[in-house]
């Protein structure tokens, strides 16, 4: 094997036959810090400082236009007794679960379809991913008009096929499922693209063996396709989960959290608290709790992702 010279940031070292062993990495030379400092400044200024300030604000009673005072953990202690917060908390979890599961299922099915060869496949793929590229507020405006119980096209179409008109986002019991429909419509294509990447990476040999063994189409999907695209599905779940938890624009533009508070998620509630009531202290406490929730759920999905990994010859469950 030819010697390969690796120019590293620590100086030129030679790897390969006859090369001296790499020394233990010394500490960065002083002048290298010049390259690190700008990045560190940005991270500290736009991530660390705002977070520390948010934590500080959450420990104070502070309404804009008035003075502020230190209240310790009082804002956090208020949260469990605030029905609007607890309801928003549960609603956020329900909304996020639906907005993850449905696009995952539909996106996987769509990927299986678009993985096949058929006429106009490329064009139809382009059409299918179009919703993903639309602006959320534009989507919200169009869907709000379509959902209008009196003038909207959806009820007109339902009536054509003999189904009773629905109230969609204009009724407390149907507002969350209706919003999930919009979310699913917009983000199913993203899941499809991720899964398509996974499908393209699957070798043909397992399917040939399965054919010889007489496996059915479902058995091939269950025992070959699904395990082999599982890492890709986990990536899709992580992206969708974080996105669904943070969802704000479409809900705000379509319902503003209504009717009543029926579609008010944590995100909307903290926005309302901080920027409509100007209760900065309490709004910050909600933000901190929401951040912790996102971190915990993300860690949980990352843990699952780590358990579902490619191993020699396939996917291994750790």
């Amino acid at each position: 094997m030819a010697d390969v010279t690796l120019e590293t940031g620590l100086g030129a070292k030679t790897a390969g036959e006859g090369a001296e062993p790499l020394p233990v990495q010394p500490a960065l030379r002083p002048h290298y810090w010049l390259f690190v400092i700008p990045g560190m400044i940005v991270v500290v200024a736009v991530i660390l400082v705002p977070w520390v300030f948010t934590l500080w604000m959450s420990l104070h009673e502070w309404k804009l236009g008035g003075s502020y005072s230190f209240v310790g953990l009082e804002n956090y202690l208020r949260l469990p007794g605030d029905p609007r917060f607890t309801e928003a908390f549960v609603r956020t979890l329900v909304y996020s679960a639906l907005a993850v599961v449905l696009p995952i299922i539909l996106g996987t099915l769509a990927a299986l379809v678009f993985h096949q060869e058929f006429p106009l496949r490329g064009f139809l793929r382009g059409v299918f991913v179009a919703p993903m590229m639309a602006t959320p507020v534009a989507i919200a405006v169009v869907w709000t008009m379509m959902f209008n119980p009196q003038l909207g096209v959806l009820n007109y179409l339902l009536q054509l096929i003999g189904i009773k008109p629905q109230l969609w986002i204009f009724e407390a019991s149907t507002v969350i499922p209706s919003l999930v429909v919009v979310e699913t419509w917009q983000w199913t294509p993203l899941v499809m693209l991720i899964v398509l990447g996974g499908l393209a990476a699957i070798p043909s040999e397992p399917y040939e063996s399965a054919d010889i063994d007489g496996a059915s189409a479902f058995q091939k999907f269950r025992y070959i396709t699904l395990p082999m695209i599982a890492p890709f599905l986990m990536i899709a779940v992580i992206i969708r989960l974080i996105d669904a938890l943070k969802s704000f624009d479409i809900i705000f533009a379509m319902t503003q959290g209504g009717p009543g508070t029926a579609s008010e998620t944590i995100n909307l509630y903290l926005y309302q608290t901080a920027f409509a009531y100007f209760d900065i202290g309490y709004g910050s406490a909600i933000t901190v709790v929401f951040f912790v929730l996102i971190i915990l759920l993300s860690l949980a999905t990352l843990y699952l992702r780590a358990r579902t990994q490619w191993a020699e010859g396939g996917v291994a469950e750790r």
Partner: protein
Amino acid sequence: MTKGSLTRRHVLAGAGAGATMLAIPAAWADVDYKKYAGSKIETNLIKGPRGDLLQKYEKEFTALTGIEVNSEVIPEQQQRQKIVIELSSGRPSFDVVHISFHVQKRLFERAKWLSSVTPFMTNAALTEADHKGDDYSSAGRTYATVEGGFNALPWSVDYFMVYWNKELFQKKGIAYPTNFDELIKAAEALHDPANGISGFVGRGLRNANLPLYMSFLLGFGKDALDEKGNLIIDGPEAVEAAKIYKHLLTKCAPAGVAGFNWMESQASFLQGKSAMWLDGIGWAPPGEDPTRSRIVGKIGYGVIPKGPVAHASPTYGDGIGIPAASAKKEQAWLYCQWAVSRLMGGRLLQSGGGVPFRNSVIGNKDTQAGVTMPAEWLTCVIESAKVSKLGLPVVVPVTEFRDIIGTALTATLSGADPATELKKAADQYRPILEKSEKS
């Protein structure tokens, strides 16, 4: 004079071609407008007919004064947040600010974010002789004054009134209602869901629904607070008003009205699907626009019917003021004075984009002659002004009030009992109010 520049005479001559200018013979006559020529001010305005009008004509202000204007015009909700955050920072980026009095009056007063404009109003070198405080309607003065002095200038008022579909009324042989009982009966009689027609439409969405509810509550001679500032939103009159609200929106309105804001209500009315719509008078122009309305020429504009005790049109309004932190207060004052002038007020009224608080604008025959909206609309403006009453309590936590009571009202649309819901909402809101106003 340099070529291309504009003098006061040019402004007068140019604008004088329109009927508006007939109403302002003495405009720009007494003040040294050029005192600050060459300076620049920043304004922060609400996107909408009022803010757009000021931005559209700001070059005339520059021509008049030599003061450059840079306007930031942003949607209402975002503007309200932005200005509060900027003002609370102590270093706002603007010298003139557009204020929603019905939401922000008390907050701005308490925080002392605005500079008093009374000293300017009494300064003959800076103020037109015809610009007097008593030219503003009583609602405008209530909104803009603090302890007798003006904290801002009242700009535009919005009265709640009834838009009604004359064709649908005629078909059923029904006259425009004069009191709440007749209103309910008319809505019931006109409600025809089998043919896709509802008798009444209005806001059901939380927060947005408060002005509609207040239209009924004020008719019972009560407000959200009593004279001492105590919350009485769960009192018997409030419950009766909620019952009317609930009845109209559950028995006579389109399905799904619980999620309707003014936009959905307006769409239903302009498509000819609702016989009556109770909302702000400022939403009128699209109704007479054939590209946006199917009932052009068929809309009646009615003063809100009388309640059992009182006849009151809930009133909301906005104004224009100068941040206390501004370093260009006199330039800003010249702008504010121009913004609420008879010229600009006349333009606002004539376009139908709003109703100025100044009586001398509303009452001027020449200005009235140039109004593009139907005469009935103008009559409704004038008559509503006579029964005008502030539509929301003047407290700091007014958004919480709208949210909490609004949620209770929306709940009644799903069948909840008005008394129970209002009691619950009052119990929830009372500590917030007391903490804010009495601590």
